[in-house]
Protein backbone atom coordinates (compact mmCIF):
# COMPACT_ATOMS: atom_id res chain seq x y z
CA UNK A 1 0.00 0.00 0.00
CA UNK A 2 1.44 3.31 -1.03
CA UNK A 3 0.88 6.18 1.37
CA UNK A 4 -0.89 9.45 0.54
CA UNK A 5 2.37 11.31 0.21
CA UNK A 6 3.78 8.97 -2.42
CA UNK A 7 0.77 9.00 -4.66
CA UNK A 8 0.83 11.23 -7.71
CA UNK A 9 -2.66 12.55 -7.17
CA UNK A 10 -4.81 12.44 -4.13
CA UNK A 11 -8.12 14.05 -3.41
CA UNK A 12 -9.53 14.04 0.09
CA UNK A 13 -13.12 14.92 0.74
CA UNK A 14 -13.33 16.86 -2.47
CA UNK A 15 -16.58 18.66 -3.25
CA UNK A 16 -17.46 20.73 -6.26
CA UNK A 17 -20.62 22.47 -7.37
CA UNK A 18 -21.42 25.04 -10.04
CA UNK A 19 -22.78 28.45 -9.25
CA UNK A 20 -26.40 27.44 -9.71
CA UNK A 21 -25.99 25.40 -6.53
CA UNK A 22 -26.02 21.95 -8.09
CA UNK A 23 -23.39 19.71 -6.55
CA UNK A 24 -21.45 17.86 -9.24
CA UNK A 25 -18.93 15.98 -7.13
CA UNK A 26 -19.44 14.97 -3.53
CA UNK A 27 -16.99 13.65 -0.99
CA UNK A 28 -14.44 12.37 -3.48
CA UNK A 29 -11.60 10.36 -1.97
CA UNK A 30 -9.10 9.21 -4.48
CA UNK A 31 -5.45 8.29 -4.63
CA UNK A 32 -3.59 7.62 -7.86
CA UNK A 33 -0.26 5.85 -7.84
CA UNK A 34 2.72 6.46 -10.12
CA UNK A 35 3.26 4.33 -13.19
CA UNK A 36 -0.36 3.31 -13.46
CA UNK A 37 -2.90 3.67 -16.23
CA UNK A 38 -6.28 4.61 -14.72
CA UNK A 39 -9.53 4.46 -16.60
CA UNK A 40 -12.29 6.78 -15.41
CA UNK A 41 -15.65 5.29 -16.27
CA UNK A 42 -19.21 6.29 -15.54
CA UNK A 43 -22.39 7.27 -17.36
CA UNK A 44 -22.91 10.67 -18.99
CA UNK A 45 -23.26 13.43 -16.43
CA UNK A 46 -21.62 11.43 -13.65
CA UNK A 47 -18.95 14.12 -13.19
CA UNK A 48 -16.01 12.64 -15.11
CA UNK A 49 -15.02 15.86 -16.86
CA UNK A 50 -15.41 17.85 -13.64
CA UNK A 51 -13.20 15.39 -11.76
CA UNK A 52 -10.54 15.64 -14.49
CA UNK A 53 -10.82 19.45 -14.37
CA UNK A 54 -10.12 19.30 -10.65
CA UNK A 55 -7.05 17.13 -11.25
CA UNK A 56 -5.84 19.44 -14.02
CA UNK A 57 -6.34 22.46 -11.74
CA UNK A 58 -8.69 24.06 -14.27
CA UNK A 59 -11.18 24.45 -11.42
CA UNK A 60 -10.68 24.47 -7.66
CA UNK A 61 -12.69 22.30 -5.26
CA UNK A 62 -15.27 24.04 -3.05
CA UNK A 63 -14.23 21.84 -0.16
CA UNK A 64 -11.26 19.53 0.34
CA UNK A 65 -7.88 19.60 -1.35
CA UNK A 66 -6.31 18.07 -4.40
CA UNK A 67 -2.69 17.08 -3.88
CA UNK A 68 -0.26 16.56 -6.74
CA UNK A 69 2.95 14.84 -5.66
CA UNK A 70 2.15 15.63 -2.05
CA UNK A 71 1.58 19.36 -2.53
CA UNK A 72 -1.74 21.17 -3.07
CA UNK A 73 -2.32 21.86 -6.76
CA UNK A 74 -3.13 25.50 -5.98
CA UNK A 75 0.38 25.95 -4.53
CA UNK A 76 2.08 25.27 -7.86
CA UNK A 77 2.92 27.98 -10.34
CA UNK A 78 1.10 27.28 -13.59
CA UNK A 79 4.22 26.88 -15.63
CA UNK A 80 5.85 24.63 -13.05
CA UNK A 81 2.76 22.43 -13.12
CA UNK A 82 2.71 22.38 -16.91
CA UNK A 83 6.15 20.78 -16.96
CA UNK A 84 4.82 17.85 -14.93
CA UNK A 85 1.19 17.52 -15.92
CA UNK A 86 -0.41 17.43 -19.36
CA UNK A 87 -4.14 17.62 -20.05
CA UNK A 88 -6.13 16.81 -23.16
CA UNK A 89 -9.57 18.33 -22.62
CA UNK A 90 -12.63 17.45 -24.62
CA UNK A 91 -13.27 21.01 -25.77
CA UNK A 92 -10.04 21.90 -27.53
CA UNK A 93 -10.02 24.68 -30.09
CA UNK A 94 -7.97 24.83 -33.27
CA UNK A 95 -9.16 28.17 -34.53
CA UNK A 96 -6.31 29.61 -36.53
CA UNK A 97 -4.32 28.14 -39.37
CA UNK A 98 -1.34 26.93 -37.42
CA UNK A 99 0.46 23.97 -38.96
CA UNK A 100 0.35 20.58 -37.29
CA UNK A 101 4.01 21.02 -36.41
CA UNK A 102 3.37 24.41 -34.76
CA UNK A 103 0.55 23.04 -32.61
CA UNK A 104 2.58 20.04 -31.43
CA UNK A 105 5.48 22.41 -30.71
CA UNK A 106 3.12 24.38 -28.44
CA UNK A 107 3.33 21.36 -26.14
CA UNK A 108 6.92 22.43 -25.46
CA UNK A 109 5.79 25.91 -24.36
CA UNK A 110 6.34 25.34 -20.61
CA UNK A 111 9.87 24.09 -21.31
CA UNK A 112 11.00 26.95 -23.55
CA UNK A 113 11.90 30.25 -21.81
CA UNK A 114 10.14 33.36 -23.10
CA UNK A 115 11.85 34.89 -26.18
CA UNK A 116 13.94 31.73 -26.68
CA UNK A 117 13.80 29.51 -29.71
CA UNK A 118 13.09 25.81 -29.26
CA UNK A 119 16.21 23.80 -28.48
CA UNK A 120 17.23 20.60 -30.24
CA UNK A 121 15.65 18.58 -27.44
CA UNK A 122 12.33 20.33 -27.94
CA UNK A 123 12.35 19.60 -31.65
CA UNK A 124 13.25 15.96 -30.96
CA UNK A 125 10.26 15.57 -28.66
CA UNK A 126 8.00 17.08 -31.30
CA UNK A 127 9.28 14.74 -34.00
CA UNK A 128 8.87 11.79 -31.67
CA UNK A 129 5.28 12.75 -30.83
CA UNK A 130 4.44 13.28 -34.51
CA UNK A 131 5.79 9.85 -35.34
CA UNK A 132 3.99 8.16 -32.44
CA UNK A 133 0.66 9.65 -33.47
CA UNK A 134 1.27 8.80 -37.12
CA UNK A 135 0.92 12.41 -38.29
CA UNK A 136 4.45 13.15 -39.49
CA UNK A 137 3.15 13.33 -43.07
CA UNK A 138 0.66 16.04 -42.00
CA UNK A 139 3.26 18.26 -40.33
CA UNK A 140 2.93 21.23 -42.70
CA UNK A 141 -0.84 20.97 -43.06
CA UNK A 142 -3.00 23.70 -41.46
CA UNK A 143 -4.84 22.23 -38.48
CA UNK A 144 -8.08 23.86 -39.63
CA UNK A 145 -8.05 21.55 -42.67
CA UNK A 146 -7.79 18.26 -40.82
CA UNK A 147 -10.49 15.69 -40.21
CA UNK A 148 -11.88 15.27 -36.69
CA UNK A 149 -9.76 12.22 -36.02
CA UNK A 150 -6.59 13.87 -37.32
CA UNK A 151 -7.23 16.88 -35.08
CA UNK A 152 -7.57 14.62 -32.09
CA UNK A 153 -4.25 12.92 -32.88
CA UNK A 154 -2.61 16.36 -33.15
CA UNK A 155 -3.96 17.30 -29.73
CA UNK A 156 -2.72 14.09 -28.14
CA UNK A 157 0.67 14.49 -29.86
CA UNK A 158 0.85 17.97 -28.34
CA UNK A 159 0.34 16.49 -24.88
CA UNK A 160 2.93 13.76 -25.51
CA UNK A 161 5.48 16.36 -26.65
CA UNK A 162 4.91 18.12 -23.32
CA UNK A 163 6.78 15.12 -21.87
CA UNK A 164 5.20 15.09 -18.42
CA UNK A 165 5.04 12.57 -15.59
CA UNK A 166 1.28 12.69 -15.49
CA UNK A 167 -1.31 12.85 -18.25
CA UNK A 168 -5.04 13.49 -18.09
CA UNK A 169 -7.14 12.48 -21.06
CA UNK A 170 -10.80 13.43 -21.40
CA UNK A 171 -12.36 11.25 -24.10
CA UNK A 172 -9.23 11.61 -26.19
CA UNK A 173 -10.23 8.85 -28.60
CA UNK A 174 -13.90 9.72 -29.08
CA UNK A 175 -13.50 10.77 -32.74
CA UNK A 176 -11.07 8.10 -33.79
CA UNK A 177 -11.43 4.97 -35.88
CA UNK A 178 -10.59 1.68 -34.21
CA UNK A 179 -7.03 1.49 -35.51
CA UNK A 180 -6.06 4.93 -34.26
CA UNK A 181 -7.93 4.40 -31.01
CA UNK A 182 -5.89 1.31 -30.28
CA UNK A 183 -2.77 3.11 -31.46
CA UNK A 184 -3.26 6.01 -29.01
CA UNK A 185 -4.06 3.65 -26.14
CA UNK A 186 -0.98 1.58 -26.95
CA UNK A 187 1.32 4.61 -27.13
CA UNK A 188 -0.03 5.94 -23.84
CA UNK A 189 0.27 2.59 -22.12
CA UNK A 190 3.87 2.27 -23.41
CA UNK A 191 4.65 5.58 -21.70
CA UNK A 192 3.19 4.18 -18.51
CA UNK A 193 5.29 0.99 -18.72
CA UNK A 194 8.53 2.52 -19.97
CA UNK A 195 8.64 5.95 -18.37
CA UNK A 196 6.50 5.38 -15.31
CA UNK A 197 3.97 7.94 -16.45
CA UNK A 198 0.70 8.20 -14.54
CA UNK A 199 -2.36 8.44 -16.74
CA UNK A 200 -6.00 8.98 -15.97
CA UNK A 201 -8.33 8.78 -18.92
CA UNK A 202 -12.08 9.18 -19.13
CA UNK A 203 -13.21 6.38 -21.42
CA UNK A 204 -16.70 5.50 -22.58
CA UNK A 205 -15.83 2.21 -24.24
CA UNK A 206 -15.61 -0.34 -21.42
CA UNK A 207 -13.89 -2.90 -23.65
CA UNK A 208 -11.19 -0.38 -24.42
CA UNK A 209 -10.81 0.50 -20.75
CA UNK A 210 -10.60 -3.18 -19.81
CA UNK A 211 -7.99 -3.87 -22.46
CA UNK A 212 -5.55 -1.06 -21.64
CA UNK A 213 -6.09 0.24 -18.12
CA UNK A 214 -4.51 -1.14 -14.96
CA UNK A 215 -7.15 0.20 -12.65
CA UNK A 216 -10.60 1.66 -12.98
CA UNK A 217 -12.23 4.52 -11.10
CA UNK A 218 -16.00 4.29 -11.33
CA UNK A 219 -18.13 7.43 -10.97
CA UNK A 220 -21.86 7.56 -10.55
CA UNK A 221 -23.87 10.70 -9.81
CA UNK A 222 -20.82 12.61 -8.57
CA UNK A 223 -19.46 9.96 -6.21
CA UNK A 224 -16.74 7.37 -6.58
CA UNK A 225 -18.52 4.00 -6.50
CA UNK A 226 -15.36 1.97 -6.45
CA UNK A 227 -11.73 2.00 -7.45
CA UNK A 228 -9.42 -0.93 -8.07
CA UNK A 229 -7.87 -3.38 -10.51
CA UNK A 230 -9.90 -3.89 -13.67
CA UNK A 231 -10.52 -7.56 -12.91
CA UNK A 232 -11.92 -6.76 -9.46
CA UNK A 233 -14.00 -3.76 -10.45
CA UNK A 234 -15.57 -4.80 -13.70
CA UNK A 235 -18.35 -7.20 -12.78
CA UNK A 236 -21.82 -7.90 -14.11
CA UNK A 237 -23.55 -6.39 -11.05
CA UNK A 238 -21.43 -3.21 -11.26
CA UNK A 239 -22.30 -2.67 -14.90
CA UNK A 240 -25.96 -3.10 -14.07
CA UNK A 241 -25.75 -0.78 -11.08
CA UNK A 242 -23.74 2.01 -12.69
CA UNK A 243 -24.78 1.95 -16.32
CA UNK A 244 -28.23 0.40 -15.95
CA UNK A 245 -27.63 -2.16 -18.67
CA UNK A 246 -27.13 -5.89 -18.54
CA UNK A 247 -23.55 -6.74 -19.34
CA UNK A 248 -21.88 -10.06 -19.57
CA UNK A 249 -18.17 -10.18 -18.78
CA UNK A 250 -16.17 -12.83 -20.57
CA UNK A 251 -12.52 -13.76 -20.42
CA UNK A 252 -10.63 -14.40 -23.62
CA UNK A 253 -9.44 -18.04 -23.47
CA UNK A 254 -5.91 -17.27 -24.67
CA UNK A 255 -5.06 -13.69 -23.71
CA UNK A 256 -7.13 -13.77 -20.50
CA UNK A 257 -8.26 -10.24 -21.40
CA UNK A 258 -11.68 -9.11 -20.23
CA UNK A 259 -14.41 -8.28 -22.66
CA UNK A 260 -18.00 -7.19 -22.23
CA UNK A 261 -21.03 -8.28 -24.17
CA UNK A 262 -24.16 -6.23 -23.72
CA UNK A 263 -27.37 -8.11 -23.38
CA UNK A 264 -30.35 -6.30 -24.79
CA UNK A 265 -33.65 -7.40 -26.10
CA UNK A 266 -34.94 -6.19 -29.44
CA UNK A 267 -38.33 -4.54 -29.40
CA UNK A 268 -39.83 -7.50 -31.30
CA UNK A 269 -38.85 -9.87 -28.47
CA UNK A 270 -40.63 -7.88 -25.78
Amino acid at each position, binding site marked *: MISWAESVFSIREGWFGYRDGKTVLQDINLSLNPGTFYGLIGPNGSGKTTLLDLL*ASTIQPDKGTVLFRGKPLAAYRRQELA*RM*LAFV*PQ*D*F*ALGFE*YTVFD*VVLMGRHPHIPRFSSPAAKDLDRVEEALALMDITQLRDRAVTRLSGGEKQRVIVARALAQDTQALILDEATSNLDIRHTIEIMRVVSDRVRQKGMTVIAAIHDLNLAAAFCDELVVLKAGSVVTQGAVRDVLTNPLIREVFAVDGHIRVHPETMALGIDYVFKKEADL
Partner: protein
Amino acid sequence: MRPVLLFTFLSVLLAAAVILATGMGFLQISPSEVLQVIVSKITGKALPETFNTVFPVVIMDIRLPRILTSALVGGGLAVSGAVFQAILLNPLADPYTLGISSGAAFGASLVLILTIFGISLPPWVSVPLFAFSGAIGTLIAVFILASPHDNYSSNTLILSGVIVASILSAGIGFIKYLANEKVGIIIFWLMGSFVGKSWTDMTLALSITLPGLFVILYFSRDLNIMALGARTAASLGIETGKTRKILLVWASLITAICVSVSGIIGFVGLIVPHFLRLLLGPDNRILIPACFFGGAILLISADTISRAILPSELPIGVLTSLIGGPFFCYIFRKRQWRGQR
Protein backbone atom coordinates in the same frame (compact mmCIF):
# COMPACT_ATOMS: atom_id res chain seq x y z
CA MET B 1 16.34 34.73 -41.59
CA ARG B 2 12.83 35.38 -42.80
CA PRO B 3 11.44 37.55 -39.95
CA VAL B 4 14.50 39.83 -40.03
CA LEU B 5 14.09 40.30 -43.76
CA LEU B 6 10.37 40.92 -43.40
CA PHE B 7 10.76 43.59 -40.72
CA THR B 8 13.62 45.31 -42.54
CA PHE B 9 11.40 45.46 -45.62
CA LEU B 10 8.44 46.79 -43.62
CA SER B 11 10.57 49.42 -41.84
CA VAL B 12 11.96 50.68 -45.14
CA LEU B 13 8.46 50.73 -46.60
CA LEU B 14 7.12 52.71 -43.63
CA ALA B 15 10.01 55.20 -43.74
CA ALA B 16 9.50 55.65 -47.47
CA ALA B 17 5.77 56.17 -46.95
CA VAL B 18 6.41 58.84 -44.30
CA ILE B 19 8.92 60.71 -46.46
CA LEU B 20 6.90 60.51 -49.67
CA ALA B 21 3.71 61.54 -47.88
CA THR B 22 5.46 64.49 -46.25
CA GLY B 23 6.56 65.75 -49.65
CA MET B 24 3.09 65.55 -51.13
CA GLY B 25 0.43 68.25 -50.94
CA PHE B 26 -0.40 71.71 -52.17
CA LEU B 27 3.28 72.58 -51.84
CA GLN B 28 5.30 69.82 -53.52
CA ILE B 29 8.58 69.05 -51.73
CA SER B 30 11.05 66.49 -53.06
CA PRO B 31 11.92 63.45 -50.87
CA SER B 32 15.56 64.57 -50.61
CA GLU B 33 14.51 67.98 -49.33
CA VAL B 34 12.21 66.32 -46.79
CA LEU B 35 15.12 64.16 -45.62
CA GLN B 36 17.39 67.21 -45.40
CA VAL B 37 14.92 69.03 -43.16
CA ILE B 38 14.38 66.02 -40.87
CA VAL B 39 18.11 65.32 -40.59
CA SER B 40 18.87 68.97 -39.84
CA LYS B 41 16.20 69.03 -37.10
CA ILE B 42 17.61 65.89 -35.49
CA THR B 43 21.29 66.77 -35.74
CA GLY B 44 20.81 70.51 -35.17
CA LYS B 45 22.83 71.41 -38.27
CA ALA B 46 21.67 74.46 -40.20
CA LEU B 47 20.17 74.06 -43.67
CA PRO B 48 21.93 75.59 -46.69
CA GLU B 49 21.27 79.32 -47.24
CA THR B 50 19.50 78.70 -50.54
CA PHE B 51 16.91 76.39 -48.94
CA ASN B 52 13.25 77.47 -49.17
CA THR B 53 12.43 78.79 -45.69
CA VAL B 54 8.78 77.76 -45.91
CA PHE B 55 9.62 74.05 -46.30
CA PRO B 56 10.86 73.41 -42.74
CA VAL B 57 7.72 75.03 -41.30
CA VAL B 58 5.37 73.07 -43.56
CA ILE B 59 7.20 69.83 -42.88
CA MET B 60 7.81 70.12 -39.15
CA ASP B 61 4.74 71.99 -37.96
CA ILE B 62 2.00 70.83 -40.30
CA ARG B 63 2.68 67.65 -42.22
CA LEU B 64 4.96 65.49 -40.11
CA PRO B 65 2.86 65.55 -36.91
CA ARG B 66 -0.26 64.69 -38.92
CA ILE B 67 1.48 61.89 -40.81
CA LEU B 68 3.09 60.39 -37.74
CA THR B 69 -0.22 60.56 -35.87
CA SER B 70 -1.96 58.71 -38.68
CA ALA B 71 0.84 56.12 -38.67
CA LEU B 72 0.47 55.53 -34.91
CA VAL B 73 -3.32 55.36 -35.09
CA GLY B 74 -3.22 52.95 -38.03
CA GLY B 75 -0.60 50.77 -36.38
CA GLY B 76 -2.38 50.89 -33.03
CA LEU B 77 -5.78 49.94 -34.42
CA ALA B 78 -4.33 47.07 -36.46
CA VAL B 79 -2.40 45.67 -33.48
CA SER B 80 -5.43 46.02 -31.24
CA GLY B 81 -7.58 44.26 -33.84
CA ALA B 82 -5.10 41.39 -34.06
CA VAL B 83 -5.22 40.98 -30.28
CA PHE B 84 -9.02 41.00 -30.15
CA GLN B 85 -9.22 38.43 -32.93
CA ALA B 86 -6.70 36.17 -31.24
CA ILE B 87 -8.20 36.42 -27.75
CA LEU B 88 -11.83 36.11 -28.76
CA LEU B 89 -10.89 33.34 -31.25
CA ASN B 90 -13.08 35.18 -33.69
CA PRO B 91 -11.89 36.56 -37.03
CA LEU B 92 -14.85 38.95 -36.99
CA ALA B 93 -13.61 40.74 -33.89
CA ASP B 94 -12.09 44.21 -34.25
CA PRO B 95 -10.88 46.94 -31.88
CA TYR B 96 -14.49 48.11 -31.49
CA THR B 97 -15.99 44.73 -30.53
CA LEU B 98 -16.12 45.61 -26.85
CA GLY B 99 -17.90 48.89 -27.55
CA ILE B 100 -14.82 51.09 -27.00
CA SER B 101 -15.66 53.22 -30.03
CA SER B 102 -19.22 53.83 -28.81
CA GLY B 103 -17.88 54.91 -25.43
CA ALA B 104 -15.43 57.32 -27.05
CA ALA B 105 -18.09 58.62 -29.40
CA PHE B 106 -20.45 59.19 -26.48
CA GLY B 107 -17.80 61.10 -24.54
CA ALA B 108 -16.94 63.23 -27.57
CA SER B 109 -20.58 63.91 -28.45
CA LEU B 110 -21.19 65.05 -24.89
CA VAL B 111 -18.54 67.76 -25.16
CA LEU B 112 -19.62 68.69 -28.69
CA ILE B 113 -23.28 69.11 -27.73
CA LEU B 114 -22.32 71.39 -24.83
CA THR B 115 -20.28 73.49 -27.23
CA ILE B 116 -23.19 73.56 -29.68
CA PHE B 117 -25.43 74.83 -26.90
CA GLY B 118 -22.89 77.59 -26.36
CA ILE B 119 -22.00 76.53 -22.85
CA SER B 120 -18.45 77.72 -22.23
CA LEU B 121 -16.29 74.93 -20.91
CA PRO B 122 -13.03 75.18 -18.96
CA PRO B 123 -10.06 74.70 -21.30
CA TRP B 124 -9.15 71.23 -19.98
CA VAL B 125 -12.49 69.83 -21.13
CA SER B 126 -11.28 68.75 -24.54
CA VAL B 127 -12.91 66.35 -26.94
CA PRO B 128 -10.02 63.83 -26.83
CA LEU B 129 -10.04 63.76 -23.02
CA PHE B 130 -13.77 63.08 -22.90
CA ALA B 131 -13.57 60.54 -25.69
CA PHE B 132 -10.83 58.73 -23.80
CA SER B 133 -12.79 58.79 -20.53
CA GLY B 134 -15.85 57.47 -22.35
CA ALA B 135 -13.82 54.64 -23.81
CA ILE B 136 -12.32 53.68 -20.44
CA GLY B 137 -15.72 53.88 -18.77
CA THR B 138 -17.07 51.49 -21.38
CA LEU B 139 -14.20 49.09 -20.85
CA ILE B 140 -14.85 49.03 -17.10
CA ALA B 141 -18.58 48.49 -17.64
CA VAL B 142 -17.92 45.60 -20.02
CA PHE B 143 -15.52 43.96 -17.56
CA ILE B 144 -17.98 44.31 -14.67
CA LEU B 145 -20.74 42.84 -16.82
CA ALA B 146 -18.59 39.97 -18.05
CA SER B 147 -17.23 39.20 -14.55
CA PRO B 148 -14.26 36.89 -14.25
CA HIS B 149 -16.08 33.70 -13.26
CA ASP B 150 -15.42 32.06 -16.61
CA ASN B 151 -12.04 33.69 -17.30
CA TYR B 152 -13.65 36.29 -19.60
CA SER B 153 -14.78 33.83 -22.26
CA SER B 154 -15.33 35.13 -25.78
CA ASN B 155 -19.09 34.87 -25.69
CA THR B 156 -19.62 36.77 -22.46
CA LEU B 157 -17.20 39.50 -23.54
CA ILE B 158 -18.72 39.94 -26.98
CA LEU B 159 -22.24 39.95 -25.54
CA SER B 160 -21.30 42.46 -22.83
CA GLY B 161 -19.71 44.65 -25.49
CA VAL B 162 -22.83 44.51 -27.64
CA ILE B 163 -25.09 45.37 -24.69
CA VAL B 164 -23.00 48.34 -23.50
CA ALA B 165 -22.49 49.61 -27.07
CA SER B 166 -26.18 49.53 -27.86
CA ILE B 167 -27.04 51.53 -24.74
CA LEU B 168 -24.35 54.08 -25.66
CA SER B 169 -25.54 54.23 -29.27
CA ALA B 170 -28.97 55.17 -28.03
CA GLY B 171 -27.31 57.90 -25.96
CA ILE B 172 -25.42 59.17 -29.00
CA GLY B 173 -28.62 59.09 -31.01
CA PHE B 174 -30.31 61.23 -28.39
CA ILE B 175 -27.45 63.75 -28.39
CA LYS B 176 -27.58 63.94 -32.20
CA TYR B 177 -31.30 64.59 -31.96
CA LEU B 178 -30.68 67.41 -29.47
CA ALA B 179 -28.01 68.88 -31.75
CA ASN B 180 -30.65 69.29 -34.43
CA GLU B 181 -29.27 70.93 -37.60
CA LYS B 182 -25.81 71.29 -36.08
CA VAL B 183 -25.49 67.51 -35.97
CA GLY B 184 -22.84 67.73 -38.71
CA ILE B 185 -20.10 68.56 -36.19
CA ILE B 186 -20.74 65.31 -34.33
CA ILE B 187 -21.09 63.21 -37.47
CA PHE B 188 -17.88 64.63 -38.87
CA TRP B 189 -15.99 63.79 -35.69
CA LEU B 190 -17.44 60.29 -35.71
CA MET B 191 -16.22 59.64 -39.24
CA GLY B 192 -12.64 60.31 -38.25
CA SER B 193 -10.07 62.76 -39.54
CA PHE B 194 -6.43 63.76 -39.16
CA VAL B 195 -6.95 67.39 -40.11
CA GLY B 196 -4.84 69.73 -37.96
CA LYS B 197 -3.18 67.02 -35.87
CA SER B 198 -0.33 68.47 -33.82
CA TRP B 199 2.73 67.13 -32.03
CA THR B 200 0.55 66.97 -28.89
CA ASP B 201 -1.79 64.50 -30.61
CA MET B 202 1.20 62.51 -31.84
CA THR B 203 2.69 62.37 -28.35
CA LEU B 204 -0.66 61.33 -26.86
CA ALA B 205 -1.00 58.49 -29.33
CA LEU B 206 2.62 57.45 -28.82
CA SER B 207 2.40 57.50 -25.03
CA ILE B 208 -0.07 54.61 -25.00
CA THR B 209 0.48 52.82 -28.30
CA LEU B 210 4.19 52.24 -27.75
CA PRO B 211 4.08 50.71 -24.25
CA GLY B 212 0.95 48.80 -25.32
CA LEU B 213 2.81 47.34 -28.27
CA PHE B 214 5.61 46.14 -26.00
CA VAL B 215 3.22 44.55 -23.50
CA ILE B 216 1.39 42.77 -26.31
CA LEU B 217 4.64 41.56 -27.87
CA TYR B 218 5.74 40.26 -24.48
CA PHE B 219 2.64 38.05 -24.35
CA SER B 220 2.52 37.18 -28.05
CA ARG B 221 3.61 33.57 -27.60
CA ASP B 222 0.99 33.07 -24.88
CA LEU B 223 -1.52 34.52 -27.30
CA ASN B 224 -0.56 31.81 -29.81
CA ILE B 225 -1.14 29.08 -27.24
CA MET B 226 -4.52 30.52 -26.29
CA ALA B 227 -5.70 29.55 -29.77
CA LEU B 228 -5.93 26.00 -28.40
CA GLY B 229 -8.72 26.99 -26.00
CA ALA B 230 -8.66 28.21 -22.41
CA ARG B 231 -8.35 24.79 -20.74
CA THR B 232 -5.48 23.64 -22.92
CA ALA B 233 -3.69 26.97 -22.58
CA ALA B 234 -3.96 26.74 -18.78
CA SER B 235 -2.56 23.21 -18.90
CA LEU B 236 0.39 24.56 -20.87
CA GLY B 237 1.30 26.95 -18.08
CA ILE B 238 -0.55 30.11 -19.04
CA GLU B 239 -2.49 32.11 -16.46
CA THR B 240 -5.33 32.31 -18.92
CA GLY B 241 -7.60 34.69 -17.02
CA LYS B 242 -4.86 37.10 -16.05
CA THR B 243 -3.23 37.12 -19.48
CA ARG B 244 -6.54 37.66 -21.27
CA LYS B 245 -7.31 40.57 -18.97
CA ILE B 246 -3.93 42.27 -19.42
CA LEU B 247 -4.10 41.91 -23.19
CA LEU B 248 -7.71 43.07 -23.41
CA VAL B 249 -6.99 46.12 -21.26
CA TRP B 250 -3.94 47.16 -23.28
CA ALA B 251 -5.59 46.54 -26.64
CA SER B 252 -8.56 48.59 -25.42
CA LEU B 253 -6.32 51.40 -24.15
CA ILE B 254 -4.66 51.59 -27.54
CA THR B 255 -8.05 51.68 -29.24
CA ALA B 256 -9.26 54.34 -26.80
CA ILE B 257 -6.35 56.68 -27.46
CA CYS B 258 -6.56 56.15 -31.23
CA VAL B 259 -10.26 56.96 -31.30
CA SER B 260 -9.80 59.94 -28.99
CA VAL B 261 -7.14 61.44 -31.21
CA SER B 262 -8.70 60.82 -34.60
CA GLY B 263 -12.35 59.77 -34.33
CA ILE B 264 -13.69 56.39 -35.36
CA ILE B 265 -11.77 54.89 -38.24
CA GLY B 266 -13.17 51.52 -39.19
CA PHE B 267 -11.76 48.82 -41.39
CA VAL B 268 -8.06 49.10 -40.42
CA GLY B 269 -8.43 47.08 -37.23
CA LEU B 270 -10.50 44.37 -38.88
CA ILE B 271 -8.90 43.91 -42.24
CA VAL B 272 -5.19 44.54 -41.69
CA PRO B 273 -4.77 41.67 -39.18
CA HIS B 274 -7.00 39.45 -41.29
CA PHE B 275 -5.12 40.15 -44.49
CA LEU B 276 -1.68 39.82 -42.90
CA ARG B 277 -2.71 36.54 -41.25
CA LEU B 278 -3.53 35.17 -44.70
CA LEU B 279 -0.16 36.33 -45.92
CA LEU B 280 2.14 35.56 -42.97
CA GLY B 281 0.32 32.89 -40.98
CA PRO B 282 -1.20 33.13 -37.50
CA ASP B 283 1.99 33.33 -35.37
CA ASN B 284 1.39 36.46 -33.27
CA ARG B 285 5.11 37.03 -32.72
CA ILE B 286 5.33 37.91 -36.43
CA LEU B 287 1.76 38.99 -37.03
CA ILE B 288 1.49 41.69 -34.35
CA PRO B 289 4.55 43.75 -35.29
CA ALA B 290 3.65 43.26 -38.96
CA CYS B 291 0.16 44.61 -38.20
CA PHE B 292 1.71 47.72 -36.68
CA PHE B 293 3.65 48.42 -39.85
CA GLY B 294 0.77 47.40 -42.11
CA GLY B 295 -1.79 49.56 -40.32
CA ALA B 296 0.60 52.52 -40.22
CA ILE B 297 1.37 52.32 -43.94
CA LEU B 298 -2.29 51.89 -44.83
CA LEU B 299 -3.47 54.92 -42.88
CA ILE B 300 -0.58 57.12 -44.10
CA SER B 301 -1.51 56.20 -47.66
CA ALA B 302 -5.22 56.75 -47.15
CA ASP B 303 -4.70 60.07 -45.36
CA THR B 304 -2.29 61.27 -48.03
CA ILE B 305 -4.70 60.37 -50.82
CA SER B 306 -7.42 62.25 -49.00
CA ARG B 307 -5.20 65.25 -48.23
CA ALA B 308 -3.01 65.64 -51.30
CA ILE B 309 -4.55 63.80 -54.23
CA LEU B 310 -8.32 64.14 -54.01
CA PRO B 311 -9.77 67.54 -54.96
CA SER B 312 -11.41 67.83 -51.53
CA GLU B 313 -10.83 65.92 -48.28
CA LEU B 314 -12.91 62.83 -47.67
CA PRO B 315 -13.40 61.42 -44.17
CA ILE B 316 -10.54 58.98 -43.74
CA GLY B 317 -12.72 56.13 -42.46
CA VAL B 318 -14.86 56.32 -45.60
CA LEU B 319 -11.77 56.29 -47.78
CA THR B 320 -10.08 53.31 -46.10
CA SER B 321 -13.22 51.25 -46.48
CA LEU B 322 -13.83 52.36 -50.06
CA ILE B 323 -10.33 51.39 -51.19
CA GLY B 324 -9.63 48.47 -48.88
CA GLY B 325 -13.03 46.80 -48.99
CA PRO B 326 -13.05 45.78 -52.66
CA PHE B 327 -9.39 44.82 -52.44
CA PHE B 328 -10.14 42.55 -49.54
CA CYS B 329 -13.15 41.06 -51.34
CA TYR B 330 -10.81 40.14 -54.18
CA ILE B 331 -8.29 38.45 -51.85
CA PHE B 332 -11.03 36.70 -49.92
CA ARG B 333 -12.72 35.37 -53.03
CA LYS B 334 -9.46 34.22 -54.57
CA ARG B 335 -8.57 32.35 -51.42
CA GLN B 336 -11.93 30.62 -51.26
CA TRP B 337 -11.46 29.39 -54.81
CA ARG B 338 -8.07 28.01 -53.95
CA GLY B 339 -9.48 26.36 -50.85
CA GLN B 340 -12.15 24.53 -52.84
CA ARG B 341 -9.71 22.85 -55.15
